[in-house]
Each structure stands twice: as C-alpha cells, then as structure tokens.
C-alpha cells in the first residue's frame, strides 16, 4: 500500500515543533502574579478537585488545579505541565485570588535552619 502522501514524514510535529503560543500570551502579558511573589519550592494545594468552568480560567488553570490535589511544589508543577516558571506563577496568582488553591511558603526563608532538621536530613541521606 503506498504511503499516504498527506501523511508524509515531517521533522517537526507536535512537541518537537516547539510552542505555538508565546509563553506570556497565556497570562495576557502579565509577568507578576496577583497578590505577590512566592518561592519556587512553595507548595501548592488545590482546594477543590476540579476548577469550575469559568470564562476567566484557561485550560492551563484547570491543569494546575488538577495536578495540585496532592501538595506539589511550584517548580514541579511548572515541570509537569511544561510551562515556564514565570507563567506558572502568574496562573497560580490567579487561582489563589479565586480561592481555588492554597500556597504554603517554605518556612526557613530567612531564619537559620534548625539543627534538628539538619540532623534529620543527614540521617535521611545516610539511610538512602
């Protein structure tokens, strides 16, 4: 059977073709999240299993809510959903404003790390 000429091999298909939407188009050009910045390793937890349909929510918003039922860090969400960190942050800001997610900042952003925690880390690493 001859190959379908309409399905000729193509070098750049789907993912390989790269993004078809410029990253910050998803955020309508906004580069900072509503309600302030948060850490790369802040944990995101969805407050609902699925975001309700809403004209203000894009597919990426829904994807984030779906991926964050278990606590998931900002950086892991970006990686899982293949979105840039900056974009994920803006979308998370929207979801936080809408009450669809909670954000938990890592505790030790400014104070020194607790020696007991450090001991637990060393013991945990040794046990790996």
């Amino acid at each position, binding site marked *: 059977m001859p190959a379908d000429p309409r399905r000729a091999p193509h070098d750049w298909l789907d993912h390989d073709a790269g993004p078809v939407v410029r990253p910050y188009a998803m955020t309508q050009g906004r*580069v900072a999240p509503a309600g302030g910045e948060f850490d790369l390793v802040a944990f995101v937890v969805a407050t609902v299993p699925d975001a309700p349909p809403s004209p203000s929510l894009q597919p990426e918003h829904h994807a984030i809510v779906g991926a964050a039922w278990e*606590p998931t860090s900002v950086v892991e969400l970006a990686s899982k959903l293949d979105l840039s960190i*900056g974009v994920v942050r803006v979308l998370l800001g929207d979801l936080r404003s809408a009450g669809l997610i909670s954000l938990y900042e890592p505790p*030790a*952003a400014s104070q020194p790390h607790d020696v007991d925690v*450090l001991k637990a880390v060393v013991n*945990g690493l040794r046990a*790996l």
Partner: protein
Amino acid sequence: MDSVRSDRDGARSRIPVALKILIAGGFGAGKTTMVGSVSEIRPLQTEEVLTGAEGADDTSGVEGKRTTTVTMDFGRITITEDLQLYLFGTPGQDRFWFLWDELSQGALGAVVLADTRRLADCFPSIDYFEQRGTPFVVAVNCFDDRRFGADAVSRALDLDPDVPVVEFDAREPVAARNVLIELVEYVARRQLAAAGAR
C-alpha cells in the same frame, strides 16, 4: 519540629518542608549529572522565560527578540514524609546571575563543582556564595585522572580552611549523596558555632 502546618482532611498528604540545595559550577563541571544521580525523580527541567523588560540581554540588532529562555535542572530527594530536599542546578551563564538570587533565597547551602582541568570556572560561584554568606562545599569532580588532591584545590581556590573540599564522581549516586551529607553537616557545624558565639 514545626514541619506540619496543616493536617487538613487527612485524605491527602500533609504539606512537607522543602529545603533547597544549589548545585553550582562551571559549564560541563557535572551539575546536571549530579542532580540526576541523586534525584529520586527523573531530573526535571524547567524553564524561566525572561521578558525584555528585565534587561538581561543586549538586544541591539535583534530588537524583535523579547524573551530569553533559561533552563534549570532540578531534582528531589524525600527524606521523610514531611521533609524534602530540592536540588537546583544553577544556570551556567553569567548573564543569568540574577536568577541565582532567587534560587539562593532561603537555601540550605550550595555545592560548587570544580573541574581541576578548568579550576577558574568555579571562581564566580565561590565569589557569589562567599559574598552572600551561603554555606558551600567544593566537590572536585574526578573525571578520569586525579590531578590534584583536595588540599591543593583548597589552596588554589584560596578557601577559608573550614570550607570542606571533597573529591567525588558525580555519576556515582553514593558519592554524590556523600557530598550532600558533607554540606549539611558543615551547615550544622556553622549553626552550632554561631549559636555558641552568641
């Protein structure tokens, strides 16, 4: 340990405490390899898109180019249910230094990878962490031949004598893990010394 900030409804996991460790060093020193060899998840890459407004690039001649993409490697190690380590391979190019400020905010410490064939490549990382007061260890990635010992590297880098210098192979998970242990123990020693001085 106030690691658990919410019990919530019990059905879902609690919120863990996340600690950040940075893996720095020159291009080709083994950052990506090290993140990959100790991470329990397939090392993930994530991208930060920089907008033209941040002024990272000289765009003269390519004024149409408004964004630059930086790739960061990261990996994760779960210590306990409530405690996770995140490893970040720092972006190598000098012009992305401002991203380091965010990465090192609240970081536990850093591992600076040194390649003795190109020792000068790790000078900028060492300068950066010294200036910021971020604790770091130097890990000499032993490729095929060991050219210099840890002492020689420590002298060549003019390090504070307390800064640990270890030789390791970034491809070996156990060796890479031992470097992290070295770092965390060093951070704990510094913490105890600081507490004793007060």
